């Protein structure tokens, strides 16, 4: 072990890094303030929400800036230790539980993204929800959501992480069901809540397993509890953990990530969650909350790295789930008529990309995709909201109420186009840099099949986004976009129909009667800002331009070096000092993740970065452009000219019809979940086989039916009536007899109960004594 202190250059940690924990605290206070006094304030509490989010944004930006400085101070191969502050909140019988902040590159990226988009969405909501009946509650929930997400992001330990995670789940439920008077909305809220809760069980189980497995190691070696994220990271890479235990824990945590991030097969809640107001879809269900699952995997990456053998020779569960998600969700986006649902499936698919990147060892591209995706997807959702607000009379139906809007809404159209290009991954836009990086690195790490899936997904993405763009902005205007007033009931998908007579009346008076028009500045300004970021945010890690443009890699990626902990964190605010044992050798051949470090610990596994090649990038660009072109031609032919070869294809062609039905019914997953496993296994099979049955198997079926009916009669008469019924009756008799026998024990006398209680205890104690002697 080399003496480490001489190679350490001091790392700066400024006020903002030390006090990043204020970022979630401020919105929490804001939330309490809105709930208590919001209705009495002149702007109904919305100003508190916006101001607290602005304060959070300032704190997050300051932390990001000082983190960049801190990384700049550090040597090229030095471990940039996270800024950790902890406070003990519970101490009992030698156990100490702390709460605190863990600020590193990943934290500041997500912290900034969440604070930034939250601020913009709150500004947008000022206009979008004006006059809403539960205006104050909306801002309260939105602010609480931001507090929860920020708390989860800065969490130093899994308990705070879990707390933030659950707060987000609660707020998601409240916001999806914001207009709960409509039964569909409250059903969607319940569905989202229960589906995500199904995954949350995994989080709880995973945290518990990790705590019991790691606590002893982390306490002795690092002086932190088994809940601590850095403790768990170091433990996972120490070579200490039992492979089965860590595998089970990683899978349990991944189930939680599946639920939250809408991965197959728990993705079904996310499209339904679009029942909430558009700002909610934009903030929670596209750019921030749903990346919590991805964030969980990125945060505890060493656990997944070791547990699931990432970068190992075979494909792991994360990649498989992610690949399925990318393709299935993208395919579903083709049959949606609701513009928000298209975007929802697109989100699911993009989250699949992030997961694919994490599963394939492309940690940095995945995190970078969180960053870029947040901007362009939030922009797309806000544009959709802008359309429904000002042009389509609160409808989201692309086929019925949109079309030809590019002339009426130039700003929205421009923002939408830019974001679409970014989402598709066209060259100078941000999505190209992140998505292509993921695909590139997946291939670079040797997973060729998954690279092909990624490219296929890129093709599908380009195609369905082109279709949505065509339907919305091109062709002739239809329905509400053409100035028809169908009223709210004309469309079952009019989720965003404002409730309350006053609200509807004001909207009718100043919105709909003017026909489609551009939205106000409070709506267009956030969209414009996000659109600018959708163009330029990719430059933060522009791999094609060379090493010097890889800012994200420098700032965010934890350096996989072996470190010795010099002192344990103690009282409030004491920083965690880490030293590098052999800084000269660098981390390009670090032992982290490959072999067990003996004299120190690792906090991040060593991952590879694929070398950027223009040839590969051009291939994926060609695929994207092919997707756009084919989809454009088909859309124009199908929706524009009503080409007779295409119209009605799903009725005429068997394959097309089966495929369409499968997609329109969302692979029957909803029915699977709703009707329970038994009937659901029968249901889809029966439906997809229906046509075949009708035409070919009818005769055979009748014969089988006759035979089985005869058999059934035999079964009924002899087995069912005599054997089964007999058994049932007998068991009922036994139960009754037992009840009658035991009933006197229930004497109602306290003394009797006491005697029974102590007698049982005595017998149990005697058994134990005998067993032990």
């Amino acid at each position, binding site marked *: 072990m080399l003496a480490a202190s001489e190679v350490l250059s001091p790392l700066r940690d400024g006020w903002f890094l030390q006090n990043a924990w204020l970022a979630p605290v401020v919105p929490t206070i804001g939330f309490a303030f809105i709930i208590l006094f919001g209705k009495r304030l002149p702007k109904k509490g919305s100003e508190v929400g916006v101001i607290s989010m602005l304060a959070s944004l300032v704190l997050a930006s300051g932390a990001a800036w000082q983190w960049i400085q801190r990384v700049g101070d550090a040597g090229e191969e030095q471990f940039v230790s996270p800024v950790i502050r902890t406070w003990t909140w519970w101490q009992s019988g030698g156990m100490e539980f702390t709460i605190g902040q863990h600020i590193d590159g990943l934290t500041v990226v997500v912290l900034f993204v969440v604070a930034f988009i939250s601020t913009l969405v709150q500004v947008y909501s000022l206009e979008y929800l004006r006059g809403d009946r539960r205006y104050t509650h909306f801002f309260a929930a939105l602010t609480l959501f931001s507090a929860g997400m920020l708390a989860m992001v800065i969490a130093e330990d899994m308990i705070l992480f879990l707390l933030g995670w659950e707060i987000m789940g609660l707020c998601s439920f409240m916001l999806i069901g914001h207009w709960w008077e409509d039964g569909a909305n409250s059903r969607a809220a319940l569905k989202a809540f229960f589906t995500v809760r199904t995954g949350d069980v995994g989080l709880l189980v995973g945290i518990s397993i990790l705590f019991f497995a790691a606590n002893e190691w982390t306490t002795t070696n690092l002086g932190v509890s088994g809940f601590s994220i850095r403790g768990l990271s170091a433990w996972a890479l120490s070579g200490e953990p039992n492979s089965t235990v860590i595998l089970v824990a990683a899978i349990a945590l991944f189930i939680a990530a599946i639920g939250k991030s809408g991965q197959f097969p728990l993705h079904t809640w996310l499209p339904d969650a679009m029942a909430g107001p558009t700002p909610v879809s934009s903030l929670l269900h596209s750019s921030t909350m749903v990346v919590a699952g991805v964030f969980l995997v990125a945060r505890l990456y060493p656990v997944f790295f070791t547990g699931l053998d990432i970068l190992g020779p075979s494909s792991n569960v994360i990649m498989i789930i992610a690949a399925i998600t990318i393709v299935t969700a993208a395919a579903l986006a083709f049959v949606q008529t609701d513009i928000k649902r298209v975007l929802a499936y697109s989100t699911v698919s993009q989250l699949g990309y992030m997961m694919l990147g994490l599963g394939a060892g492309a940690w940095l591209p995945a995190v970078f995709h969180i960053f870029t995706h947040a901007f362009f997807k939030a922009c797309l959702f806000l544009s959709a909201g802008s359309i429904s607000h000002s042009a389509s009379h609160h409808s989201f139906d692309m086929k019925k109420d949109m079309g030809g809007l590019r002339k009426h809404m130039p700003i929205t159209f421009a923002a939408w186009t830019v974001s679409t290009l970014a989402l598709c991954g066209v060259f100078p836009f941000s999505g190209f840099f992140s998505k292509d990086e993921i695909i590139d690195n997946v291939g670079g790490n040797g997973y060729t099949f998954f690279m092909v899936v990624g490219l296929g997904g890129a093709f599908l993405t380009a195609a369905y986004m082109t279709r949505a763009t065509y339907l919305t902005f091109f062709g002739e205007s239809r329905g509400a976009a053409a100035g028809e007033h169908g009223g709210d009931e004309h469309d079952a998908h009019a989720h965003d129909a404002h409730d309350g007579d006053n609200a509807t009346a004001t909207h009718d008076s100043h919105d709909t009667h003017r026909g489609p028009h551009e939205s106000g500045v409070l709506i267009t300004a956030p969209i414009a800002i996000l659109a600018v970021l959708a163009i330029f945010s990719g430059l933060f890690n522009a791999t094609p331009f060379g090493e010097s443009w890889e800012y994200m890699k420098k700032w965010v990626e934890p350096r996989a070096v072996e470190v010795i902990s010099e002192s344990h964190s103690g009282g409030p605010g004491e920083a965690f000092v880490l030293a590098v044992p052999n800084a000269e050798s660098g981390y390009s051949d670090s032992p982290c993740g490959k072999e067990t470090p003996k004299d120190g610990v690792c906090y991040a596994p060593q991952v590879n970065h694929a070398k950027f090649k223009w040839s590969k990038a051009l291939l994926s660009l060609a695929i994207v452009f092919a997707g756009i072109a084919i989809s454009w031609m088909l859309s124009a032919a199908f929706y524009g000219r009503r080409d007779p070869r295409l119209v009605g294809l799903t009725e005429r062609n068997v394959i097309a019809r089966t495929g369409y039905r499968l997609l329109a019914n969302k692979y029957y997953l909803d029915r699977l979940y709703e009707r329970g496993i038994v009937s659901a296994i029968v249901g889809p099979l029966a439906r997809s086989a229906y046509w075949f049955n009708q035409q070919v198997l009818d005769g055979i079926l009748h014969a089988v039916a006759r035979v089985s009916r005869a058999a059934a009669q035999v079964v009924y008469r002899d087995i069912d009536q005599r054997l089964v019924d007999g058994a049932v009756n007998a068991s009922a008799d036994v139960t009754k007899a037992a009840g009658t026998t035991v009933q006197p024990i229930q004497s109602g006398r306290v003394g009797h109960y006491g005697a029974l209680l102590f*007698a049982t205890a005595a017998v149990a104690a005697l058994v134990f004594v005998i067993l032990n002697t």
Partner: protein
Amino acid sequence: MFAAELLVAQNIGFAVIALMMIVAALRVVTTSNVVHAALWLVVVLGGAAAQYILLAAEFVAVTQVLVYIGAVMVLFLFGTMLTRARIGAERDLNNAYWRLGIPVAGALFAAMAIALVSSFGDEQLPAEPEVTSVQQISDQIFGPYLLPFWALSFVLLAAIIGAIVLARKD
């Protein structure tokens, strides 16, 4: 030499007090007079306080005397007087099935006695124990065991309110 004498004195003291406590405890559960039972209970509790001193727990012993013998016993006597007009011997203080208690208690004692003797056997307690100071105890209460202390405060508060609510006449 001195220590040995002290040890003998301690053992004799323990034996005398323990015998007294056991007899008194038996009287508590067998006497036919509620007030007598309460007074026998005083003997048991006082004996327990003496045992605590033998166990070098002076603060607990003092608290035992103050809280139990001072306050709790007064409560018991009040309870007896408020619910019984007559203070004197009564019949039927026992249940009809009181014999059930003997085998249960016996079996429980057998189990515990076997377990205790087999696991502790001849193990000696420290001959000259350090008396635990009040400061040490308060450090414990307001340090690591602060949370139970808070919980206990709430229990007491709830008990006070509950007792008032239950005992109100209206």
